[in-house]
Each structure stands twice: as C-alpha cells, then as structure tokens.
C-alpha cells in the first residue's frame, strides 16, 4: 500500500451533487495525465443517506478502487435534518464524516464542512483522539458559508474541490476548464469565484504538515473517462444495434438511458414498455423484422425475460440481452453489487435451452464483448447475454480514445437478400426452408425477413419442420434439436480461434498456485496477484469472460498447470467454481473459493489475505467479511 497515489473520497447525502462533482474532479485528474478508477457507493434512496464516490488516481494503471483511501472531503448531509424525533433515518448530518473513518489510511487528510457538521457531533465521535492515533490531518472548514457568500449553498462542493486542490498542491487549470464545459454561464462565474476563494484561503490560512500531494502523470494519448454502462451502450451502437426496449431497474437503467438518449439522433428506436416480458418480446419482434435489437434488465426483471429468451432460441431469432446483477435474492440490495445471477442467466428457460453468455471484467472488455455479442447473435441466430454487475456498471476508468476508433458492424449475419433467396431451397408450396436440413454450415441455416420476396416461412416456439410448421416427427426433432445445441460447439471453435483474449492471464506464468475470477472482480484480483508476486510469492491469475460456451481447453490447461487454485467471486454459493467443475468434470479437489457477499466489491487486500489464509499452514479465518470455502473433500 503506497501513497504515490491519491484516493479521494467525497461523501455527503444522495442529492448533494456528489456524483457530478466527482465526475468533474475525476476528469480534471485524468486531464492532468493520471490513470483513474472511480467507485460509487450509494443507498437505495433518492435524497439523504450516506453516499460517497471514491476516485483513485495514480501515475500507473489502476484496476480497482484500491485498499482504503487517503483523502476525505466530507460535505455533511444536507437532507439529513429529520424533524421527527426517533425517525428511522434519524439525524444523519454527521454520517458522511463518521461513517467513512474506518477505511481512511494512516496519515490521511480530512476536510469537513463545519457549516453543516456541528462541533458537538464531532466531539461525540472522538475525532480528535482518532486523528491523533492515526496521524490524520484534519481541516474543519466552513464550506457552506463560503458558498453562500458568493452564490448558493449547493456550491459548497466547489469550495471543497478548491480546498482539495490547495491541500494537494494542484493547478486549478483543468478544474476551471471542466467547470466551463459543464456549467451554464449564470452559475459558472459564481462557482469559479468560490473555487478561487477556497483555494487562496486554504493556502493563506493553513500550514500543510501532510506529505500527500497529487501525483503527476502524463498520458501520451488522449483519454476518455467511461463507465461499464457507457462501454456496453457504445459497443451496442458499434455492433449495429438500433432498437432497444426496456423497463427501468437499477442498475440496468444506465444502459437503457444512454441508448434512449442517443438513438433518436442516429435513426434508432427506443421503447419503454409495460414490463420486462414485453421488453424482451419487443426485442425479439424487432429482430425478427430485421433490426439489430437489444433488451436487458437486472436480476428481478431478467426473471421475466426467460420466456422470450427461450422463444428466441427456439425460433433462432438473433437477440442480445444484458443482465446487470445486483445483490439478490428477490429485490435484494438494489444499489449493491453481487455476482449472484450467473447460474440463473446460464440456465433460465425451459428445455435444453442454450445461449451465449459473456461476462466482461473491464470497461474495454464491456465494449469489445458487446460488439462480439451482436456479431455472434446475428451470425449464429442465437440469443447472447452480457452479464455484468452494479460495480462494472457504475465505475469509471480512463480508456485510450483510440481504442474506440473503429468501424461499426451493422451486418445482419446469416440473413439472406432477396437475390439470395431466389437460389435458396423452398418446399412444394413455395415456402422458404428457413430451418433446412441441407444448408447447415456451422449448424446455422440462413434466415429471411418478413416482407422479403420468396422468404415466407413460419417462426414458431413449437418444434418445427424446415419451413416452420409445427412438427412432432422424431427424426426432425432430433435433427433440429441437435443443430441448435451444436451451434455452441461452432461458436466455441470460433472464439478459440479468434477471441482467446476473452480470457485474461496475469502474474507469474510458471507459478503453481492459481487465482481464478470472473467479471468485475477482475481488477481487485489482478492487483492482488501483482502485489503477491511483488512480495515474493509465485502466483498466476486468470479472469474468464466466456461463461457459455465454456472455454474448456483453456481452463483445463490452466488447472493442469497448478497444484491449487482459488476461485474469487462475489456470491455466497460459489457459482462460478460450480460451473468450472460441471464443465470440466474434475479439479474439485484443487479448487477453494474466496467469497464475498456483503454488498461491497473485493478490495485487493482481501484477495491477498485470502491467499495467505489458504496457503498458510496454521488454520485461521480471514479478518474481512469474506468466506473461504474449502476444496471438495477437505
């Protein structure tokens, strides 16, 4: 744990402008040449409650929120003044200060708004005593009055940023520029005044005894700060998607909103509909009629989509769904991440239903695999699902702008033109053999669209003959069923050949201890593996993105090369480890699990500790809220 990085936490109540302030500050840090990773923590409440955003900025690549943080800007919760005695949410003005202290590193800085947080409250939490113990540097500043003097109370965020810049010895240039971009003229001037006043006042009135300064970095290329939701939406746009239908549900709403806001300008269609069954059914209908379509939800809404999902599979209608996991079961914890829907997404829908499932672990992968999801869905006429979680959905990292500089792929895959339909097989009544026996390269028969000449057929969720008539003929059943299932083999072959990078390897290649993870836990695990190797251990890691079809060969090779492996995932029942054992049929005795399901994502230190507990000879439990599940037979 080094302090050559800044981890700045801004805390307040929901509705206090924490999110927008942090976005701007994160961008300012990025523009100064630093690598960025943001983490957002918020309650399922519109106003009030304790919320914070953490920005980790360093001169090297940052892949997770890090362990703890070193700068707290505590604004006080302006929505927390509850007039009712003993109200459930109580008086919470102190929360943005009191609830953040546990993770603040030694030697860290605290700036809090004296204007909102009263002296008695501060005394009650023994701040002075704790600060002394931890060598914290505390700056009580009346941000509220400062803001009021020059503008409005809400501008105390800006004052806080000004104080931060002064304490960290930062230039104001990038912050000023960003404010000019983001604010309208009538509030810009006041904000700039407040920024400068706070900056000057801090420099004049305080002695800085702390060592923490903003790190310096230089990017050689232009960067963009994006969330996983941005990346999925943009991957869809570049994958040719122009139809989205949905129903709001956290955290999926982000993707839905981004596409809804952009589609009108690019000739696309967005539909907010009555429920998630309709949402997915609309995507099926649009795709059937010839538009690349997508829908999605979070666990609870995705549950309703299992019907249309099966329909898409049986009718071989291409379709992309996204599933943004949050903690379950049922409504669970709406604003907290978990990786608990894996088995649900893999197996929902009746019969021997199959689909392709990708689990991106980074912003780049989210973009890449969404594009790939559209390619595969339209090439193989199969539903494809992107599974990710609230963490990846909301965290921002900087990505090289050039990464996105590539051509869109609007192709409809194995859809025929009318000229091609003339040559295709038809039955005696002139119906197109949409699900034909002969044309089955890669197990995919070509498709036509309603309105095309010579392409008439029936799409049905019942088992069907080559032209789509309902059929219970045993030979036909075996043929059609086998063809649909074996598509996954063809897809696996293509992925192995063209996209082996869906799985990410890191650490010491020769190590005989492996750490395995999937999805958004990637960053914390990758950093932990790096740290373990720096500390003299020999560990290698792999992050898997292909959930179905499973990368059997790659995983077998990885597991054969190690004596033991620890599977790290954010759920209580070791779902991914179960998948590995099911798909490979062995290695149960080699696999232990490190599980976390308290609503917060892994931090690298927890993974390091998990490793230590697992390989340490003495038996002990990890200190954090994680659980170790021993290997089969242990």
């Amino acid at each position, binding site marked *: 744990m080094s302090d050559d990085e800044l981890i700045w936490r801004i805390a307040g109540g929901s509705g206090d402008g924490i999110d927008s302030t942090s976005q701007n500050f994160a961008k300012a840090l990025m523009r100064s040449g630093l690598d960025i990773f943001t983490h957002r923590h918020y309650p399922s409440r519109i106003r009030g409650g304790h919320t914070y955003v953490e920005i980790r900025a360093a001169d090297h690549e940052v892949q997770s929120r890090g362990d703890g943080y070193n700068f707290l800007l505590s604004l006080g919760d302006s929505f927390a003044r509850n007039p009712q005695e003993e109200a459930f949410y109580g008086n919470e003005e102190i929360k943005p200060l009191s609830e953040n202290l546990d993770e603040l590193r030694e030697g860290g800085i605290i700036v809090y708004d004296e204007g909102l947080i009263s002296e008695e409250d501060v005394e009650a939490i023994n701040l002075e005593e704790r600060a002394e113990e931890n060598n914290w540097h505390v700056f009580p500043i009346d941000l509220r009055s400062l803001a009021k003097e020059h503008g409005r109370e809400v501008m105390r965020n800006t004052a806080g940023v000004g104080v931060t810049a002064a304490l960290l010895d930062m230039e104001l240039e990038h912050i000023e520029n960003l404010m000019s971009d983001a604010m309208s003229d009538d509030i810009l001037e006041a904000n700039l005044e407040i920024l400068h006043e706070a900056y000057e006042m801090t420099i004049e009135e305080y002695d800085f005894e702390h060592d923490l300064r903003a790190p310096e970095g230089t990017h050689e290329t232009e960067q963009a700060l994006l969330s996983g939701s941005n990346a999925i939406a943009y991957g869809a746009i570049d994958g040719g998607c122009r139809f989205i239908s949905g129903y709001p549900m956290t955290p999926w709403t982000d993707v839905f909103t981004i596409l809804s806001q952009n589609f009108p300008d690019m000739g696309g269609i967005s539909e907010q509909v009555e429920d998630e069954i*309709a949402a997915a059914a*609309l995507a099926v209908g649009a795709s*059937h009629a010839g538009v690349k379509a997508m829908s999605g939800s979070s666990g609870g809404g995705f549950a309703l989509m299992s019907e249309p999902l099966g*329909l898409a599979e049986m009718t071989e209608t291409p379709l992309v769904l996204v599933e943004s996991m949050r903690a379950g079961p049922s409504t669970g914890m709406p604003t907290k991440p978990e990786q608990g829907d894996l088995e649900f997404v893999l197996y929902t829908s009746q019969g021997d239903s199959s689909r392709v499932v990708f689990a991106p672990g980074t912003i780049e992968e989210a973009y890449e695999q969404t594009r790939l999801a559209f390619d595969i869905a339209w090439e193989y006429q199969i539903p494809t699902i992107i599974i990710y979680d609230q963490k990846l959905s909301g965290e921002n990292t900087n990505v090289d702008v050039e990464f996105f500089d590539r*051509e869109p792929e609007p192709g409809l895959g194995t859809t025929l033109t*009318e000229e091609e339909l003339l040559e295709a097989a038809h039955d005696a009544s002139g119906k197109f053999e949409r699900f034909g026996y002969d044309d089955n390269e890669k197990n995919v028969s070509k498709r036509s669209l309603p309105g095309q000449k010579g392409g008439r057929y029936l799409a049905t969720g019942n088992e069907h003959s080559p032209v789509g008539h309902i059929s219970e003929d045993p030979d036909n059943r075996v043929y059609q069923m086998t063809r649909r299932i074996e598509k996954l083999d063809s897809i696996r072959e293509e992925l192995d050949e063209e996209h082996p990078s869906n799985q990410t390897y890191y650490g010491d290649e020769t190590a005989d201890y492996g750490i395995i993870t999937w999805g958004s836990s990637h960053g914390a695990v990758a950093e932990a593996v790096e740290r373990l190797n720096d500390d003299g251990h020999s560990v290698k890691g792999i992050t898997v993105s292909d959930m179905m079809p499973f990368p059997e060969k790659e995983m077998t090779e990885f597991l054969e090369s190690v004596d033991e492996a620890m599977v790290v995932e954010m759920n209580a029942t070791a779902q991914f480890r179960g998948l590995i054992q099911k798909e490979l049929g062995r290695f149960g005795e080699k696999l232990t699990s490190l599980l976390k399901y308290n609503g917060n994502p892994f931090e690298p230190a927890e993974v390091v500790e998990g490793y230590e507990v697992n390989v340490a000879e003495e038996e002990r439990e990890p200190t954090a809220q994680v659980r170790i599940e021993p290997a089969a037979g242990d």
Partner: protein
Amino acid sequence: MSAFNAIGEEREIDRDEFTPGVEPQPTWCPGCGDFGVLKSLKQALPEVGKTPEEVLTVTGIGCSGKLNSYLDTYGFHTIHGRSLPVARAAKLANPELEVIAAGGDGDGYGIGGNHWIHTARENHDITYIVFNNEIFGLTKGQTSPTSPKGHKSKTQPSGSAKMPLRPLSMSLNAGASYVARTAAVNPNQAKEIIKEAIEHDGFAHVDFLTQCPTWNKDARQYVPYIDVQESDDYDFDVTDRREAAEMMHETEDVLNEGTVLTGRYYVDEDRPSYTEEKKAVGELPDEPLAERYFDDDAEWERSYDLLDRHK
C-alpha cells in the same frame, strides 16, 4: 432498391395464395369457430390488396395460435399471451409490413392482458383479432376471462364466481381507435369487419366470437346474432366515444343472456397511430429502420463520435 420487394407489390392476388399448398391440415375440431376467422382472413386479405409476403401474422398460444400455420403469410407463432409485444416491435422495425396479431380469450385477455391494454393505449397500427370462445380450448375446457359468471368447468366445478371481462369496453377505455365484434357464424360481416380493421390506421381490435363445439356447448354464440349497424333498434354514432361506450355496455350486458350483438362499435379515424406519434416527436426514423441494413450507402454513426463528453 428496396430490400422488401414483396411489400406494396401491385398485382391481382388469388385467394388461394393464402392457403398452404402442402401440409398441414388444421387440427381444429369439426365445427370449430376458428375456421371462420381463417376463412374471413383469406377472403379479406386479397380484397384489401395484400400479398402473402407483406403480411406478418403474429399469434399466441392455444387453438387460435395455430392460425398462421394454416394461413400462408409470413408468420410468427409466439408464446402464451405475448403476441402483441412481438407484433408491435415488428411494426416499429418495419412500418410498411401489414401486421396482424391474433390470439384467444385466455391468451389475449388473460395472460396477455397487460400487453393488450398498453398496445391499445399506444394505438399501434396493427390489427388484433381475438378468438373469443369463452373457454380454454387447447388445455381442454377451463374457465376463461370471458366465461360467464356461474360457468362450470373442470377448474371451477361449482361455477365461476367471477364476472366476465368486458373486452370491448376495456379496449375502448384503454385507447383503441377501432373496436368491433363479429362472429364466425356470420361470415359476410366478419369479412367486412376484418377488411376495415386491416385498413384502419391505428389499433383495431376485433373481438371474434368463435364457437367451441367440444368444450363450450352452452355458449351463446350459437343463437342468432343481430348486426347493430343494420338494425333500426340500435342507432348510434360509431365515431362518438360516449355513444359507442354505451352501446358496448348494452352489448356486453346481454351477451350471456341470449342476445348477441355484433358490428362496429367505435371508429376513430382522427387519432394518429403510434408510428405517426413517434415520428412526430422524432423517435422513429422516416424510412423503415429494417431497410437501412440493406443499404450499402447508409452512413452508420459510431460511438467514437460520442466520446467528446468523456474526455
């Protein structure tokens, strides 16, 4: 060049084109009212100048769901209750398609009730034919949302305690711009109503009474019907919501008492369809979106152009 040449094709269309030349034969029971819907569609479609390939029929599950197995158009036989959302999206993706959705009373008024209300509310330009035989047929005779109160079935052996749903009034209140009822036993009227519904620009809901000779022998659809437009006893303005609502009430009150009234109940030619509304607010492209994928010259915007706000 269009990618969908079957759309708007102008030529003489033979009624037989809508009949599959080979298998399958309908699996409906002898005397089933569903034959009446099939027949009226086969007659209506050529008369309104539609070719089999520009028509997309979207059905749900049940005996009614098999309609497009026996009607030779582009067809999508979906799942129980979900025909409307699939049909809606197909129409948005390619507004030039003639989209006809069909289902039964259990399928459309029961499990698909939510979709029905919202499709009517949005006034999508599709024709929706509900085969209303007041019973679940394919699952062998259970009470449906339109079964009369007191109706005895295998699942309500003591007689249903529920009031039947009123499909015409529901549709009107939800916002459908064309609401009619016809019956399989009245083929001439049925054909005319189906034609009007197809030509209507908006959500056209046809409650189609279809007798079920196997599971619902008591249903009133067997008794003589009265065409409200042709009877002097029922004089009302079909373009007037209030008058239409009143007539629907009267019709639905007496349906299970031996009098069956059919005909047009409400026609609103002024309300724009959803396609038009969506175009008006700039949320639907002028040209069919589905066409764009076949246009080699189309300029596809890319996400790179959106990155400025993230820099």
